[in-house]
């Protein structure tokens, strides 16, 4: 059984593909890194997987996963730091998928939130206002929210950017546990050493698939060179994609 299958998927903005004609499968309980140069469509792909961006063509088969089964942590997380909310309340938002608009938050829910905050090293920070914590602490809280969501598909877009070494190490340890729990994880990463440490599979992207498979194979030198060449092929005067006509 596959977690997420892509069928000739093209994603983009105003008819321009950010990534096109992707076919492949993110295996169940597998951690896959999405790697590629800047502008290669990595974040766009995650948006598409999360359902936050409709395909220009093709489709994403999520094998029946609903919005509540998906945890998505975008690169620009969009949290308004000035909003009158505590870290504990932010993490509690992770219960949204299960409790909805009107469901009561139970004692076990509160325990779950506390446990998640402990797991990311934020015990005692429950009542801290969003504007009184550091960027790293906020990122830890967003990870705690992912834990609370208890999702089957977890999408993380450059989750360790601008974090210190200790925070990164702590959070990587969390991520490495998820495939063993049967969760499917897709991470956008730039650090190839980290990719090799965390992810069994890698999708090398340069606005189209360059390589997708076991990490060591996908990150071969020839593939990385090809990815760099392809990412530089963007053109303001691009013609209509010929593969669309052939399809």
């Amino acid at each position, binding site marked *: 059984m596959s977690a997420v299958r892509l069928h000739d998927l093209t994603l983009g903005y105003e008819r321009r593909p950010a990534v096109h004609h992707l076919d492949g499968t993110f295996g169940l309980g597998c951690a896959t890194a999405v790697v590629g140069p800047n502008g290669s469509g990595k974040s766009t792909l995650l948006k598409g997987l999360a359902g*936050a961006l409709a395909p220009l063509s093709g489709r994403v088969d999520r094998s029946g996963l609903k919005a509540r089964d998906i945890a*998505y942590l975008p690169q620009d997380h*969009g*949290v*308004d730091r000035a*909003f009158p909310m505590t870290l504990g309340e932010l993490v509690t*938002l992770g219960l949204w998928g299960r409790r909805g608009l*009107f469901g009561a938050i139970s004692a076990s829910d509160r325990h779950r939130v506390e446990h998640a905050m402990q797991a990311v090293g934020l015990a005692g920070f429950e009542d801290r206002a*969003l504007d009184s914590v550091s960027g790293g602490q906020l990122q830890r809280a967003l990870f705690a929210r992912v834990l609370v969501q208890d999702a089957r598909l977890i999408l993380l877009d450059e989750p360790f950017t601008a974090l210190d070494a200790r925070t990164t190490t702590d959070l990587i340890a969390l991520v490495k546990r998820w495939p063993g729990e049967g969760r499917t994880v897709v991470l956008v990463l730039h650090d190839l050493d980290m990719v090799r440490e965390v992810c069994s599979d890698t999708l090398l992207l340069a606005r189209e698939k360059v390589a997708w498979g076991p990490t060591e194979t996908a990150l071969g030198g020839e593939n990385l060179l090809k990815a760099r060449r392809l990412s530089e092929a963007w053109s303001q005067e691009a013609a209509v994609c010929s593969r669309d006509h052939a399809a």
Partner: protein
Amino acid sequence: MSALPDLADAHFAMPAAVAGALALAFGGAPLGVLLIARRMSLVGDALSHGILPGAALAYLLAGPDPVALTLGALGAGFIVAILSSLLARTGRLPEDAAFAVFYLSALALGVVILGRSANSEALLGLLFGAAGGLDATGLIVSAIAASGTLILLALFLRGFLAESADPVFMRASGLPGGLLHLLLMMLVALNLVAGFRAFGALMTVGLMMIPAASARFWARGYTGQAAAAVLMSVLASGSGLWLAHSLGVEPGAIMTLCASALFAVSALTGPNKGLLQNLPGRTHLEG
């Protein structure tokens, strides 16, 4: 004789004015806190102008009928709220620009309609109000607005807060953010309509937003800020009404000025980022 607020009639009925002000405090101030938290402080101002053509058209067609005035204002406020929200949701225009387009158009339409009735005092009355305008119909509308707002806020507060704090996450989680946003805008319009005949469209916005801004200096979380905003609004309204009655002037502007004075006190002495909290030489904590 016009049933629109008469600027010369300062001998307003105090009990009705107090009831109207209390309703506005309990309904409007918590909404003001949400608007400020969502960085939409000027949306109330925009909507207050947006209700003018509806009230003006009702005045032109039905004369000084309070029910018609209220329905006209409410209809116009809802239309501006819906159109602005829809346009902003398409992503083609920032929300403040969408509101600017519709409220300025609505204001111009209101001026043209009132121009046809050759009654310039009516426009002033709509903008600045008079407590004499708060009759039985006005009180019923105020009561409905306040109780309806509190009930809907209690029901949907988690959604309002979630959608405001992290719209990207909540959209991915399947929250109907657009509908919640529209509901919030309609509640703002309802409270403005409830207050405009007594205190004026512009002054009602002042009583909604200034206490909400003051509340940020007294509490960190939404609930604390909403409670502080209601208290500030009650204090401003009470002192403003008393002063207006003593001086024999219209209450809307005096109440707003009282809210401004409370804001100054809050900004100076409030425990949450008040100016006196950051004086040089203050001791700091260990952790």
